[in-house]
């Protein structure tokens, strides 16, 4: 997982928006079936009708596949960037297409098309159908319309916001960072917004849709003191509309990035080795994401390659440990109204009262384990197949206090600012990179520390969580999770916890 610094992010965005598509000539009114106005709008947006969806699905299953789905997506990304004092660059990206998937047992055939015409879709369906090698006639299922949940309400969509409405917030962010500290020498800031239309149809007849907004505002600050350079990054990201932009978020980011950078001039590297680590509330949730989350993804467990593969129903942590993967938090970057396989999102307990309660499932793994889907089947875009992926992963509150936890440590470290992490699923070794934190000496935070990697073993670290406070907090940074070449937006959170022993990078 990576807290993306988008300074060099040139792929996206700016000013141009092609909001609505022209309705192609082949779209006729639906015959026989009636759908809600919402679904009808989505069908028209993508220029298809029910008959075509059914025809393409039949083609997809014509060689003996037992399930097929169509994932339509139209995503508009706009981004504005500030460098050397002015908002002087804009980027935009429009992506449009349909992914067609055919399953035969746990085997997958997949193809996509960037043009949504009957010919192009049937061709892609024929390619995806090749995962099976027989022939069968399939009759279309009755349409089952599913209304999505509503975990992100938008007052003003990004499609209705013009460039001059956005610019002042980025400019103010820059100016405030410079005003806060005379050592500031460079500021990079960006505003990145997305609007995605998604429509899903499966051979089981499920037809549903989602409108997914996303916004990220971020800033990189470089300071110079006696010839020494230091830099930090701060950002906030939500599934919100234009209402996200206000003076409050600008103040918050400006103060945070200046505080974070200033701290680094006094920071050193700790002594290398094993020691107790206190994980501060918030971004420390990266511990759960790397140490536990990925290894709970059921594709790894189905294949037996996860270190947690045979631990279901067993005690893996202290009784006060409850770990959740949640797609339902209001406006959260990791939330989804439905997953990319048409299933409703949910709040899933991975660990309940210290016992391994559920894996993270997509359709293939849920069927393999004969459990209900958990709403974790996600994909980067219509160009990708769904995989079991996290949403917002966090630990619920525990019985201790932050003060008690810190004062319990004689020699150790406290960490609360991170940039990235990684895990080796089979070995269970996970890491996360600490941008800054503090030494703990005799129960007190003392010397600031910086730029160290921490490494541990998932099951061991989970068992080693010996204290957990009541100050649970989600980190709303630009967390992005990478797996099998696909990126999806996520978040993480944690109350202050004590991990008895982790291996900390440093000097010997």
């Amino acid at each position, binding site marked *: 997982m990576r807290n993306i610094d988008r300074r060099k992010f040139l792929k996206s965005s700016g000013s141009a928006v092609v909001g609505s598509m022209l309705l192609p000539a082949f779209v006729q009114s639906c015959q026989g079936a009636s759908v809600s106005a919402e679904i009808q709008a989505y069908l028209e947006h993508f220029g298809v009708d029910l008959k075509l969806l059914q025809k393409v699905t039949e083609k997809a299953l014509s060689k003996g596949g037992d399930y097929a789905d169509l994932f339509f997506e139209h995503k508009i990304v706009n981004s504005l960037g500030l460098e050397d004092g002015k908002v002087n660059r804009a980027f935009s990206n429009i992506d449009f297409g349909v992914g067609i998937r055919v399953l035969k047992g746990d085997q997958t055939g997949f193809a996509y098309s960037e043009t949504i015409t009957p010919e192009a879709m049937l061709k892609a369906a024929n390619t995806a159908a090749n995962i099976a090698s027989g022939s069968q006639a399939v009759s279309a299922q009755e349409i089952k319309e599913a209304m999505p949940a509503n975990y992100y309400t938008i007052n003003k969509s990004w499609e209705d916001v013009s460039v001059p409405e956005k610019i002042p917030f980025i400019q103010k962010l820059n100016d405030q960072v410079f005003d806060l500290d005379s050592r500031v020498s*460079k500021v990079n800031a960006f505003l990145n917004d997305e609007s995605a239309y998604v429509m899903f149809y499966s051979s089981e007849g499920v037809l549903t849709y989602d409108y997914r907004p996303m916004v990220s505002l971020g800033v990189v600050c470089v300071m110079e003191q006696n010839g020494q350079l230091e830099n930090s990054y701060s950002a906030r990201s939500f599934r919100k509309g234009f209402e996200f932009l206000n003076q409050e978020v600008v103040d918050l980011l400006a103060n945070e990035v200046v505080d974070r950078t200033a701290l680094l001039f006094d920071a050193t590297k700790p002594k290398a080795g094993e020691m107790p680590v206190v994980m501060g509330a918030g971004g420390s949730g990266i511990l759960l994401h790397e140490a536990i989350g990925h290894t709970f993804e059921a594709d790894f467990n189905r294949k*037996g*390659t996860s270190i947690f593969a045979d631990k279901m129903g067993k005690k893996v942590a202290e009784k006060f440990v409850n770990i959740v993967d949640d797609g339902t938090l209001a406006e959260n970057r990791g939330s989804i109204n439905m997953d990319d396989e048409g299933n409703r999102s949910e709040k899933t307990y991975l660990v309940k009262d210290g016992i391994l309660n559920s894996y993270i499932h997509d359709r293939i793994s849920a069927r393999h384990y004969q459990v209900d889907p958990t709403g974790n089947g996600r994909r980067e875009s219509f160009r990708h197949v769904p995989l079991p992926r996290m949403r917002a992963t966090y630990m619920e509150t525990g019985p201790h206090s932050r003060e008690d936890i810190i004062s319990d440590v004689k020699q150790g470290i406290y960490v609360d600012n991170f940039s990235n992490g990684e895990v080796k699923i089979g070995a269970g070794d996970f890491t996360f990179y600490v941008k800054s934190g503090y030494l703990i000496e005799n129960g007190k935070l003392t010397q600031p520390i910086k730029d160290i990697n921490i490494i541990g073993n998932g099951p061991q670290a989970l068992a080693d969580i010996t204290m957990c406070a009541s100050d649970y907090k989600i980190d709303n940074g630009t967390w992005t999770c990478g797996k099998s070449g696909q990126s999806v937006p996520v978040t993480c959170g944690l109350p202050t916890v004590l991990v008895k022993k982790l291996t900390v990078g440093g000097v010997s």
Partner: protein
Amino acid sequence: MTQEEKYNLAKWAMQHALDSGADAASIVISESKSSTVDVREQKIDTLKEAIQSSLSVRLFVDQKYSAHRTNRLDKQELAHFIEQAIAGTKYLSPDPYRQLPDPALYYQGNGQELGTVDPSYDKVDPATKVKLAFDVEKEAFEKDERIISVSASYSDNTNSRLMVTSNGFEGETKNSSFSLSASVSVNGGDARPSEGWYERAIFFDQLKKSEIGSLALERALKKIGQEKIKSGKYDMLIENRAVSRLFYPLLSALDGYSIQQKNSFLIDQLGKKVASEKLSLVDDPLIPGGLGSKLFDGEGLAAKKRTVFDKGVLGTYFIDTYYARKLEMEPTTGDTSNLVFELGDKDLASMVKGMKKGILVTGFNGGNTNGSTGDFSYGIDGFLVENGEIIQPVSEMNISGNMKSLWMSLAELGNDPNPISSWQIPSMLFEGIDFSGS
């Protein structure tokens, strides 16, 4: 699209941008095609095929700049897209450093053949692709009772990038790549070590098609029983395929953007000795058949061979047109091509033999580098070496230090440049590195 259709569309889009208020523009049309076969337990796991095309436009309007991309290539929609983009650009602040490159620096040759694309790309039969993936998996499948899972993949892709600019550049690059890989997980007590192997080539006929699954299995079995060892200073030998994780931050520090935005630990170091005498390398874009070969870079600048380090002395930065203007320097190029190192005379096995006590690093796990200061810390796994012998597999350890002293401590390079990357980095030995473990 045919090449002519692409040129026509690109020129039409450029003219439309100029007619709609842009002072200058560059248009890129990208197309790619790919296929993947994943195999697990002698069954196809996933079959994937993809074709994509897109148009990108960089706009220079009243000294203001923006860049846009779309995969909606219908002319009517494109026209609207470009007009909207230009309208939005006008609200930005001027940026006088934004300009198309100096036309004198554009590539002006006749398109010498560099062998970057396999003309037979479309002739590889789907059944052959599937069989190759099955064969690779078979090399490991059920070959050892400790195996938990084996998977193998075949994948290929070909892509083209055609660019026209309003100050006279026209050119197209084409590339192809074929690859085979295997991944093996084995039971090693509580932990389930997993290792992989990967081969890649521009031409299908040149792709190595065997000893991939077997090598992945051999590597995974060697990892059984891995554990951390005591913290301390050790010599560090890094396998050729892994070194790029530590080389990347050194290259990032040479990037025009990093220099100008003060996110580099090598500002004002041109011509100075910043690394060990052992480090000599060139960026050579014109090697026939090189994985990073090209006649011109992403902006159209003619590709040239450049010395990056000569006996540790820094020879060049990588600076594109924009940052060159900001830095008041000459542009070089924004992208690397083939990085060719001056090699040592030993292979990895001989380098291990020559180690008294140290750690052979075969993989990295997370970690990062602070671009401004060069401070780094990375997770590693590999093997403890004593008196030239591999003693045990190690994992769950970190290395930490500073990039400047790390590259000064480079003691030896192998004779084994990485064959699957345009960065042809050999195995490397560094002295006295801080490892944290138990």
